């Protein structure tokens, strides 16, 4: 098996004179999670639509191979290898969850008994057994998304496309979804995931590509990308001006904000880094009133990768 699960070269797509994808290369080895990261309108959904055979790329695009099958000549073979969960729920709202699942089993040509067994197993696994007899249109957002993924898995796809699977979900459903996605790869599948959250890509993906204006701005592991991005820092705030001054004296390299009585130290937000800061404060007998850790987020990634400057925004991720 030398073929990667997904291989696309010079992928292009434009609608009229608006270029959505301007020649991107993607290679995803089997059994890994790959994340395409980008803001709304970056072209993530278009990339998924093309790779999943829903829309065709521009004629001057390079070859695309999915599961070793050329999309231009063997789209139907590629379709047999993939499963897709789009950004907008791909369930039939008029029929029940179980009927949706059995519909998938029929379309995958599973024998009746096997179809029922697979469906029952997936409904159980995705915690949908109790709601199986209700119309899918009555499901909550998280349930619809789970049903959507369960339907995708009926045929046992080797390559799974998930387009923003957690957008619009509450934090609990999001964590459930992350667990589900991790399970998929332990079963040997390849996952192609799009997201606008750096945190999500960081949690799940083996490799991340940042899509910006239809081009890949950077590609690498989460760690590699974060190293490209300055902007991680620790912010210490004091109420006592004396404490503030002595802290500033101990922590060299800290940027001072005399008005707010705040110090800002470059940091990767790691445990070791934080401990060294705290140790130095302890040694000087100073106590900060507030400590916040700012980690680079998607905005920082973009400002860095697209040649802008990281703006000094008041936004902080409090941990």
């Amino acid at each position, binding site marked *: 098996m030398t073929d990667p699960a997904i291989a696309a070269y010079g992928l292009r797509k434009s609608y009229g004179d608006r270029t959505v994808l301007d020649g991107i290369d993607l290679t995803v080895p089997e059994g890994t999670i790959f994340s395409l990261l980008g803001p709304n309108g970056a072209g993530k959904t278009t990339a998924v639509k093309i790779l*999943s*055979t*829903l*829309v*065709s790329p521009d004629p001057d695009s390079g070859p695309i191979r999915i599961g070793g099958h050329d999309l231009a000549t063997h789209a*139907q*073979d590629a*379709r*047999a290898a*993939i499963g*897709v969960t*789009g950004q*907008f*729920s*791909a*369930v*039939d*709202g*008029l*029929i029940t969850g179980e*009927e949706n699942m059995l*519909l998938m089993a*029929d*379309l*995958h*040509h599973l024998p009746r008994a096997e179809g029922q067994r697979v469906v029952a197993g997936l409904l159980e696994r995705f915690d949908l057994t109790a709601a199986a007899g209700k*119309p899918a249109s009555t499901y909550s957002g998280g349930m619809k998304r789970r049903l959507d993924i369960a*339907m995708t898995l009926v*045929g046992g796809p080797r390559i799974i496309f998930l387009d923003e699977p957690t957008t619009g979900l509450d934090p609990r459903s999001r964590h459930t979804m992350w667990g589900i996605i991790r399970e998929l790869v332990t079963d040997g599948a390849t996952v192609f995931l799009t997201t606008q959250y750096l945190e999500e890509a960081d949690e799940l993906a083996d490799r991340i590509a940042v899509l910006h204006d239809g081009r890949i701005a950077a590609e690498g592991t989460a760690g590699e990308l974060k190293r490209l991005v300055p902007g991680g820092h620790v912010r210490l705030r004091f109420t006592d001006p004396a404490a503030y001054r002595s802290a500033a004296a101990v922590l060299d390299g800290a940027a001072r904000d005399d008005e707010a009585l705040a110090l800002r130290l470059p940091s990767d937000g790691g445990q070791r880094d934080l401990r060294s800061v705290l140790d130095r404060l302890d040694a000087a007998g100073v106590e900060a009133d507030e400590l916040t850790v700012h980690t680079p987020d998607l905005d920082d990634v973009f400002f860095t990768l697209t040649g802008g400057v990281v703006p000094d925004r008041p936004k902080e991720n409090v941990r």
Partner: protein
Amino acid sequence: MSSLPLAMRDSSTMLRRNLLHARRYPSLTLNLLLTPVMLLLLFVYVFGDTMSAGIGGGDRSAYLAYILPGILLMTIGSTVIGTAVSVSTDMNEGIIARFRTMAIHRGSILFGHVVGSVLQTVGSLVLVGAVGVAMGFRSSGAGVLEWLAAFGLLVLVTLAFTWIAVGMGLSSPNAEAASNNAMPLILLPLISSAFVPLDSMPGWFRPIAEYQPFTPAIETLRGLLLGTEIGNNGWITLAWCLALTVLGHRWSKARFDRDPE
């Protein structure tokens, strides 16, 4: 699996899905059934005495016999509006995008809609026909063969207009637009020979009524059920059905094969 059994299997799966929709949500079809039934009751029991004078004498039951063929064809026009609406609604559902990324027979999605719609329309025709019979409609001189021919004619017309409606549904951005676009299908029977004979219409209007698909179909159905002169109308109807079916099929397929938005 070779491709023919695959196509058949997927098509029957899609048909089952469409029939399930129709069974769960029969209100659309039943609402559309109201129009022809109301018109039938109105024209026979309220306008019947006056209208029957216009077709050369006779009483209400003569007028019932005169308009029932037209009402049956109007039932087809009315029911396929529902087809256009449900196709348009369905195409906006994410599930269709899912079907497009699956290794299934592509034509099966439209096939399910078309066959499902034809079956629903036939059901509607039986209901409206039963209302007519309950009101006193009796065929004159029609044997089993004529009844079968009449049934076959109605099915062919249904198939033709269903394909047109599917094309309309695929070309409409939403359900409201689909409903508006399909409106002519219920208006055309009103300006045919359904309610009054062609020669009672003003001369300038007659060609409009004459050269449209419903008039020859109505005349053929009258001939089969009531023994009136059919003439060329049978062949003209078959030609219309064939042309509309081919046109609707080509149009629908071209629309469906386009990349979705």
